[in-house]
């Protein structure tokens, strides 16, 4: 008896939950309304079956529960009823499947006017490439991938020279312009998903997959990776901005072409040396750092990382609220007015002798190893050297006190959450996964053994 009532209430409750739920599909931003239509058809068909079957179930439990003198009816089968039920079910299935197949036929055949762009996934970041004036993407292969050519664009292919490369995880699209995304991966499986676009597809190393859509609504949307791709899967994020054609064109024009990234003039180390004079006061003549002045060691750090951090200070992506030492850096970094200046000074710093910084932190090295090996080594490498590929700076032999300060800043949200700090949130998430200050110091103590 109770069971019958509970089943009935669960049906009613499910319906109420369905209509009251604030959790529902995001507002669609492409013209894939046909997918939403198929979902609605499926909802009505399955919803009807759900209610009908379960109400019937509750009714049977209530009506035919054991009663004195009552005996069950002997009825081995009823072929007529079963035939009708089969027909009825088949009709319901066809009602759901038919629109689905029609929409799928549209999905697998991108229209001729769809413009192509490329999405490149790698652990754990997104990059994008747009065809240049010739409208053709150059060929690419993982074999060509290097720090200066992260896309692996074929340097021999003339079609690739004018390709626009976007080496950060924020991409743009023009509204109402159908596009076909060509998907590639440098390492493992990834999945290019924008919930508001409704469509998604895996990126598979070794082949090019695709999807297409027609963005209809301006706005900025999150790109999520939705195929498990290793320990950083949950922080592999990007964003896509859908904007007017004019805004898109000007954004695209401000991005470098592949040829420009390949032919950039080498850094001027002498100019960097001149600029460095201002830094030497705190960071030392050879970048060895000075804890008393809260200046970390910078000698031996990866040049691309120094460049990126200087830019972050300039843009205000670092050194904001709560980061007083960082605020000082903002003033100094702003003295480097051009990108060349930033590149020159980073190149000069790279010439310093790399002597390990003095150790100031002690902790449980075994525990530190455990945490580091499990969570940090995937990006910063087993030896703590860091690598451009995963956007991971060097940790081994660098200032350990600075490491503790920065991890604490990430945990506190002081660093890493600024919109221009593309990979900062990855560190925020990883740092919050750590237990407490003791654990951070354990990790620092372990890193001190890697020099």
């Amino acid at each position, binding site marked *: 008896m109770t069971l019958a009532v509970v089943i009935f209430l669960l049906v009613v409750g499910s319906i109420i939950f369905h209509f009251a739920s604030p*959790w529902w599909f995001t507002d669609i931003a492409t013209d894939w309304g046909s997918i939403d239509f198929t979902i609605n058809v499926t909802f009505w068909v399955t919803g009807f079956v759900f209610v009908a079957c379960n109400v019937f179930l509750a009714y049977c439990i209530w009506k035919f529960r*054991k009663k004195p003198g009552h005996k069950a009816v002997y009825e081995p089968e009823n072929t007529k009823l079963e035939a009708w039920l089969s027909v009825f079910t088949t009709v319901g299935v066809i009602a759901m499947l038919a629109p*689905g197949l029609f929409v799928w036929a549209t999905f697998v055949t991108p229209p001729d006017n769809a413009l192509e762009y490329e999405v490149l996934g790698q652990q754990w970041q997104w990059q994008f490439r747009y065809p240049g004036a010739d409208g053709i993407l150059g060929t690419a292969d993982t074999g060509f991938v290097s720090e200066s050519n992260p896309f692996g664009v074929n340097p021999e292919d003339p079609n690739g020279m004018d390709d626009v490369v976007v080496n950060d995880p924020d991409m743009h699209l023009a509204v109402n312009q159908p596009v076909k995304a060509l998907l590639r991966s440098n390492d493992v*499986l990834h999945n290019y998903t924008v919930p508001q676009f409704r469509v998604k597809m895996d990126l598979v190393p070794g*082949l090019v997959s695709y999807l297409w859509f027609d963005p209809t609504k301006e706005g900025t949307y999150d790109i999520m990776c939705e195929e498990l791709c290793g320990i950083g899967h949950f922080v592999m994020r990007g964003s896509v901005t859908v904007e007017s054609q004019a805004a898109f064109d000007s954004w695209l024009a401000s991005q470098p072409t592949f040829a420009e990234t390949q032919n950039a003039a080498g850094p001027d180390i002498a100019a960097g040396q001149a600029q460095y004079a201002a830094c030497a006061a705190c960071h030392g003549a050879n970048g060895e750092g000075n804890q008393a002045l809260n200046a970390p060691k910078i000698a031996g750090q990866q040049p691309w990382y120094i460049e990126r951090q200087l830019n972050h200070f300039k843009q205000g992506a670092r050194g904001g609220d709560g980061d007083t030492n960082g605020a000082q850096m903002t003033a100094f970094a702003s003295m480097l007015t051009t990108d060349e200046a930033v590149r020159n000074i980073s190149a000069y710093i790279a010439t310093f002798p790399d002597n390990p910084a003095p150790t100031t932190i002690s902790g449980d090295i075994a525990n530190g190893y455990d945490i580091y090996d499990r969570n940090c080594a995937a990006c910063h490498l087993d030896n703590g050297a860091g690598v451009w590929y995963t956007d991971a700076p060097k940790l081994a032999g660098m200032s350990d006190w600075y490491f503790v300060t920065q991890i604490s800043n990430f945990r506190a949200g002081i660093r890493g959450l600024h919109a221009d700090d593309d990979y900062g949130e990855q560190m925020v998430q990883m740092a*919050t996964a750590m237990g407490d200050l003791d654990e951070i110091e354990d990790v620092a103590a372990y890193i001190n053994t890697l020099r």
Partner: protein
Amino acid sequence: MAYVPLADQDQEMEMHHPHSWVEKYVWSQDHKVIAIQYGGLAVLTGIVGLVLSLLFRLQLGFPESVDFVDPNFYYQAVTMHGMIMVVYFLTALFLGGFGNYMVPLMLGARDMVFPFLNMMSVWTFLISVIILMASFFVGGGPTGAGWTLYPPQTTMAGTPGHDAGIILMLVSLAVFVVAFTMGGLNYVVTILQYRCRGMTLMRMPLTIWGIFVATVLGLFAFPALLVACIMMMFDTLLGTSFFMPAVIESGSPLDYEGGSPILFQHLFWFFGHPEVYIVALPAFGLVSDVLSVHARKNIFGYRMMVWAIIAIGGLSFIVWAHHMYVSGMNPYFGFFFATTTLIIAVPTALKVYNWLLTLWEGDIRLNAPMYFAIGFIFTFIHGGLTGLFLGNVVIDLPLSDTYFVVAHFHLVMGVSPILVLFAAIYHWYPKLSGRMYNETMAKAHFWITFLGAYAIYLPMHYLGFLGVPRRYYALGSTDFIPASAQELNSSITIAALIVGTAQILFFINIIGSLKWGKKADPNPWGAASLEWQTPDTPPKHGNWGDELPTVYRWAYDYSVPGAPEDFIPQNTPERVTPAASDEHIDTDKDSTLADV
């Protein structure tokens, strides 16, 4: 030697009678002991899987305050939970446990056809579990590649347990396949060749049909897993490039070229989809029998049920790529696999209708097994219907890899089969142990498990509609996921903790009742199938005493008009009504057992 007359087998059986405690309970060749060894080991492994799920649920529900689950462990826990539950818990428990226990008893055989092979099967299974568990103690820990083990990720540095952990997983799976094949050959041949006199195929209880077809599926599907494991092991250890394309690991290229990750996915799901039915079909069978007995009514449309089991089994081999709609495979496959997938909904729906129609005009005894069986119908309807979303290829575009998938497959192949397991364990407990379980405690166990499970998975579908991706250690900051989604996650975790903890009730009940339970009648539910007609309860080695039973009718003669009782056991001769003095029939018991 054509057919071995069953009476002649008695002599052979004598030779296997155990002489010491060790032979009786450890190196036993008795299918009932092996069933309990298989089931017990599967349950112990399942408890590990359950605890892992509670640990990562804690992280998902309370990311701020739970700091003992780091991303590395999260992925390991998710992976091991999935693999343990699907393979080492559900498959082993349904086929190794229930298959071993039910097949000879329900068919009127003395034992499995190859008892020694049967014993080898359970010990090989133990080895595979030990290898699996060993991966928790090696450097780097168990693999965290997701239970699907997709290359190239599985063996690359960014994945937890990419060195020793994955190797142990692959070896363990290969050993499991060997164990399963030994057991599976036994079940299939026993069902085909060792039925007692009069037990035609269409007189077999649906439990046997479910186990039979599931075993055949397993025998033909597990090889695909074995093949995939072998080739992946070659790639990992010997440097071949079956699945491994040219990839970059931490900035440097690895020494692979040209392999196809999608080939692995095809092999994996060629195993993986039938695997769903390897778990579901025995559950369908068991629940059919529980429903029929407690509704005092024959299972409605027995023939349709058998056909549906066979049809589902056959179709399950041509739907696998519906797991791969967004995998980057040739998208034109989508048309074929969406169609086959939705076709499989028809026989499945017919099974549901027939369960409902079995209750119609029945005389329903709402005992604990019936509670669980009815709970199964509810969750299975829900889980089956959400499958229609995911099977329909375009709807899979927004929903795949979100929590909708997680909610769907947990309802349909987690909660539903587990409710059947509980129904079946309570239902057959009196035969297995000779004691009654505690009805009140069993019902409390039902309410918490059933309502709790629905509270976990109903809201989870809606996280999926929203687009929340699965396999995320933390949601981080996005524009489209509102803060309320995190609150929902917390409430799901609380429900999961309650459901997980409530399983203690089950263990207290079945272990405690061994000692304190009321002594059970040989046939307390008044069931017609053979296993309830054994001369001893619990059945002794050899099952049937001196004489094997003879079957005169199907297993569902309930409430037959004109019969003195509301059931006629399968071994009751035609036109001979059971004598009133028959010890199996106790006219008083109905009133004491029914609760309504």
